[in-house]
């Protein structure tokens, strides 16, 4: 081999070089395959390898004593399944259903379940479930499930998904939030179709994104997050489904969740530009407009739920694994965060 020599044209395809390449190809292919197999085994072990509760023979019913419903992330055969624990003893044994969900919410004997149907091309669905977790309605989603919520009466359902702008410019993201009236069957595909006013003026920027809906008791009024502008700002909006309008109330409020008595919102507030955990949980008193920081000091990226008028609950990842825990904290800023259920995500109280 004479690298850089003037004469040997095409001589680089020598037997020795081809052989060296084939050898390297075999090594690299082996490395890629071995790592992929290892990764599959590792993930499987992480999710299903533990001795967590398996789906039981008794069907899980949403009717019955007060419980906490959630998505089980306990390592074992019940990973990813819908599960419930006694509200009075959340640390106790869980009942696991056959149904799997990636996001979950329940109210008044009805559940909303967002699922990812994984395949070469993944498809996503929102399922409305009855009190026996049987599917009564299915809506295909435009992206990856993020938030799910029902009104207290169980009639109004809302979900937020992530939509990936395109596959070439990987940094373009948006959200899409839909609202379904489970009684009439009417579906609002995207809140972006609603008119928005801020300080009396129309907000028409097409870069508006909405997420994290919470409904009031009248099944028509709702609160949600709107984001717009570059760099984006987030706003709390109050909306009217019949009128198809929204009004901006204040800034820096994400994923609001209305208390059962309808007087306060728990939400995540951006408090730093740290990429890992920029948010803290706050409670907003709607009448006075005062914000109270809650005792949870870790960053929370979840739409919290109210267990009662004094306590909120939310999911937090456990660390490196696929697992997460459900924690609770008093809603008045006092006390401290406590772990409610280990190996759980997407909590919803069954009152």
């Amino acid at each position, binding site marked *: 081999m004479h690298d850089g020599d003037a004469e040997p044209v095409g001589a680089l395809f020598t037997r020795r070089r081809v052989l060296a390449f084939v050898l390297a190809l075999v090594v690299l292919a082996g490395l890629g395959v071995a790592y992929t197999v290892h990764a599959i085994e590792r993930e499987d072990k992480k999710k299903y390898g533990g001795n967590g509760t398996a789906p039981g023979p008794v069907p899980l019913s949403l009717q019955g004593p007060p419980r906490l419903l959630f998505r089980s992330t306990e390592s074992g055969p019940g990973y990813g399944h819908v599960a419930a624990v006694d509200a009075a003893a959340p640390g106790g044994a869980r009942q696991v259903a056959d149904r799997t969900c990636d996001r979950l919410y329940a109210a008044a004997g009805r559940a909303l379940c967002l699922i990812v149907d994984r395949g070469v091309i993944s498809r996503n669905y929102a399922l409305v479930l009855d009190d026996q977790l049987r599917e009564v309605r299915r809506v295909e989603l435009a992206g990856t499930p993020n938030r799910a919520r029902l009104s207290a009466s169980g009639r109004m359902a809302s979900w937020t998904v*992530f939509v990936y702008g*395109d596959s070439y410019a990987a940094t373009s993201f948006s959200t899409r939030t839909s609202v379904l009236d489970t009684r009439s069957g009417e579906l609002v595909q995207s809140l972006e179709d609603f008119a928005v006013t801020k300080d009396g003026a129309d907000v028409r920027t097409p870069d508006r994104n909405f997420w994290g809906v919470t409904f009031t008791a009248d099944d028509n009024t709702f609160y949600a997050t709107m984001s717009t502008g570059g760099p984006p700002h987030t706003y709390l909006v109050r909306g009217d489904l019949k009128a198809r309008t929204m009004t901006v109330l204040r800034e820096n409020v994400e994923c609001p969740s209305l208390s059962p008595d309808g007087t306060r919102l728990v939400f995540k507030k951006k408090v730093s530009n740290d990429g*890992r955990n920029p948010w803290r949980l706050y409670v907003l008193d709607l009448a006075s407009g005062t914000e109270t920081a809650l005792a949870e000091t870790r960053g929370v990226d979840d739409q919290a739920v109210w267990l009662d008028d004094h306590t909120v609950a939310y999911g937090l990842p456990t660390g490196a694994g696929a697992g997460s825990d459900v924690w609770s904290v008093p809603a008045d800023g006092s006390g401290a965060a406590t772990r409610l259920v280990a190996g759980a995500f997407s909590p919803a109280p069954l009152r």
Partner: protein
Amino acid sequence: MYLSSSRSQDTATGVRRDRARAAGGVVTANVVALGLVSLVTDISSEMVTAVMPVYLVAGLGLSILQFGFLDGLYQGVTVFLRLAGGHIADRFAARKKVAAVGYGVSAVSKLGFPLIGASVPGIGTLLAVDRAGKGLRTAPRDALISLSSTPESQGKAFGVHRALDTVGAFTGPFIAFLILSAVATAYDAVFVVSFCVGAVGLLMLLLFVRDRPSPASERKAASTRAGLRLLRDAPFRRLCGCALLLGAATVSDAFVFLVLQRRLDLAGHWFPLLPLGTAGVYLLLALPMGLVADRVGRRTVFLLGHVALGGVYALLAGPVGGLALLAGVFVLHGTFYAMTDGVLMAAAGAGLPAPLRTSGLAVLQTGQAAGKFVSSVAFGWAWTRWGPERAVMWSGAALAVAFAVSAAVMGGARARARWGR
């Protein structure tokens, strides 16, 4: 004159036989090897591109909004490295080495993702490193393609290369989604496999691609000043100007597919497949268009390719919908790429002196990239302001102006050349 001197030097060096074969209608082994390197590297990078959105949101749980600020970082880094890489490659006659560094940097950056985890600045840096590698390698690679072909067969050589390149763009996402459907949430597997594939590409370059040996006199000729002096050469300067102008009227792929998705109201899961439609047509037409360009004139074909782009705009803003719209956009968008992407490099390649070919191509690519950057900022602004349909119409108007100016500038140049200059 640059042109004549470079040609006489070329025949004096050892690429003589390569060139003779190319002139006889055979694309040199070097060009095919470079095409295969690009094919494999594209599989590697398309894999990452395909999983990145899912990885960021589902795997790391990052807020979508934290990602806005990552974008700005890329542009500056890439531009600087492209120019610097081009100059170094010429100065030390090290086109292959500079390209290898670029391919290597990109390959290694893939391993960083599983290591860095959920750090927004970390991910931003890795994406920037990956693009820096791409910026570094593009000009020396295209210079190698150009130098491995006769002046008469530049279009054909770039056509072969771009066709192979596009095969990679096709296969990458499919491999990524296949792996993901097998491993579900183990995104690190995609990154590791992407690294392995990138390493294969780098090895192919190191083992099979041969740089053009340059005498010491040529290297000395490749000074910074000589590089700058390239722009004094009127035809080259005009080509750069037209590339910039037309680039500024070229709506980026991302926006084309977004508008298309809105017009067709496509379900989200079909969206990642849209670029493959354009790529498919590009793949089929890259070589034929290269051959046509060699015959009727590369600048003419490059210019006329923008008529196809105008057709894309007309479809996007027009009344036609459904399958006709989808197929029409794919065909015209793919044709546009086939007539402009490799053809522009082919148009410049033969006219640039061999010792300065990398620098020259780097300058040309930088001009085009700058134009496209202006375009995407302007289009995003127009979209926000007036909505997608009117943004497309304005782009169409801008394209018509850019086309007219370019036709006058390049046509005038050719006319003068023909009148015996």
